[in-house]
């Protein structure tokens, strides 16, 4: 598949905002994964803190609520010794129609180095980065567009588990373990920013990606994605080394695209029966939150092939790595 012009042009996120995984080269992605390895080690110490971002201010701006992701980012910032300004804007008096510019200007007046933001509208993070070009913007999810740190932590989890199996380390393997790795993504891909970030990361790292979903839940432009569309779910399950599941994004309107939840489970849910058809050592992943019984059976979630807990725990080291490279890498004298 042809990547579009502008794909994979950023060689490193040092001193830069992180808006979309689409833009990162393989080197840039591997650099984040490698840096996260060190932070995994930091997170195992009794004092889970390093002074790398001491004196820096990180604002977390969540226009769309997500306790888990926000806490993960804020924990990451605090473990880097940054000062954290937390604005759960979704619950404040900001109504639809409030100028993004005004909200940012208020925060900027407090002298922030970086803002982590989540917004229900695609492109919001890019627009913010234009208003405050001197501030590093970390996209925590923008509408249907991208959720870069999720894509990174998913890739990191795969590398972590596979390198353990191959008796090597993530650092030593680089991107090698992704070469030709068979990754299947199932579910509401059309409305999923995680899907876009995952596909960008996996394809850039060299994996072979297939998508499987009811016709209405595939994106209109899927023919231009670096993936193959699998029409036979069972066949795809038997093919895959990694299966990533996505829930129905009903808050983004997927309700009208399928007849019912039951129908969705019938056609594309990972039931116990279907899970048996998978390779015995295949990995099962889910970015959360999960709808047990819809896209994935409870017993499958709790089985040994599911690495969902690892994904969750890898969130903090990956976000520490992103904040460290982005913010610590942007001292004076550095061009972004």
């Amino acid at each position, binding site marked *: 598949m042809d990547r579009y012009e502008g794909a994979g042009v950023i060689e490193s996120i040092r001193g830069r905002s992180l808006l979309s995984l689409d833009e990162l080269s393989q080197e840039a992605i591997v650099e984040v994964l*490698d840096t996260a390895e*060190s932070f995994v080690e930091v997170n195992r110490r009794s004092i889970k803190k390093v002074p790398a971002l001491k004196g820096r201010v990180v604002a977390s701006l969540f226009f769309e609520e997500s306790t888990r992701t926000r806490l993960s980012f804020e924990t990451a910032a605090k473990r880097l010794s940054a000062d954290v300004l937390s604005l759960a804007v979704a619950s404040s008096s900001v109504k639809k129609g409030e100028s993004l510019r005004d909200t940012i200007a208020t925060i900027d007046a407090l002298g922030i180095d970086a803002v982590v933001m989540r917004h229900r509208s695609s492109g919001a993070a890019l627009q913010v980065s234009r208003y405050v070009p001197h501030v590093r913007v970390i996209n925590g999810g923008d509408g249907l567009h991208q959720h870069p740190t999720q894509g990174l932590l998913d890739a990191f989890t795969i590398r972590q588990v596979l390198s353990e199996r191959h008796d090597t380390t993530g*650092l030593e*393997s680089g991107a090698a373990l992704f070469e030709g790795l068979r990754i299947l993504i199932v579910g509401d891909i059309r409305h999923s920013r995680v899907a876009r970030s995952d596909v960008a990361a996996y394809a850039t790292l060299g994996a072979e990606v297939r998508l499987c979903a009811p016709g209405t839940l595939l994106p209109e432009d899927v023919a231009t994605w670096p993936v193959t569309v699998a029409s036979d779910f069972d066949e795809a399950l038997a093919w895959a080394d990694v299966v990533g599941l996505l829930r129905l994004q009903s808050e983004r309107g997927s309700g009208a695209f399928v007849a019912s939840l039951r129908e969705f489970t019938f056609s594309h849910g990972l039931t116990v029966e279907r899970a048996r058809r998978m390779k015995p050592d295949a990995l099962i992943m889910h970015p959360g939150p999960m709808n047990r019984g819809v896209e994935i059976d409870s017993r499958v979630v709790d089985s040994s092939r599911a690495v969902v807990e690892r994904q969750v725990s890898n969130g903090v080291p990956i976000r520490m790595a992103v904040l*460290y490279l982005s913010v610590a*890498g942007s001292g004076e004298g550095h061009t972004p």
Partner: protein
Amino acid sequence: MSNEDDRQARTRGPAFTAKSQLMTTDDVARAMRRMAHEIVERNHDVASLSIIGLQTGGRAPASALASVLAEISGQPVNAGMLDVSFYRDDLSRNPLVASSATNIDHDLTDRTVVLVDDVLFTGRTIRAALNALSDWGRPRAVQLAVLVDRGHRELPIRPDYVGKNLPTAQDEAIVATLEGVWIGTREPA
């Protein structure tokens, strides 16, 4: 090249051009041996030591020092590696270097830590190492062993064990490994 070497090569900075070699492999081996004896002389109880090499330049010297110490004392010696990238206070002046593994598998409390690095220059790396160590527990004492002391300290840090004192100019560069020590220049960044 493994991914690790690849990364380090990419981030090591501009290329080094040697002007002359100041120590050979044998010279370095002799200096290591001498330092090991000095350490034993000063500390007596090798079992209470922790030889901690600073990533990445101190890694090889630390393990060489640990094996010589084990040989002359006849006991196993506790060793480890410490990455201090996250503790540096000069991030705005120097580019980020890729972080490497920290591997310390034993408790440092009440031990005497001997930090090992290849070159002692401004002292900022050692200061970062001291900060890092304080997050790892409370050693009874910290000592410093370096292959080369090239002067130009910016902080009140002094080494306890030195392979060789080499006065240098600010714009010169030193490469010190177990294979030898060279003086030369680096291309400007």
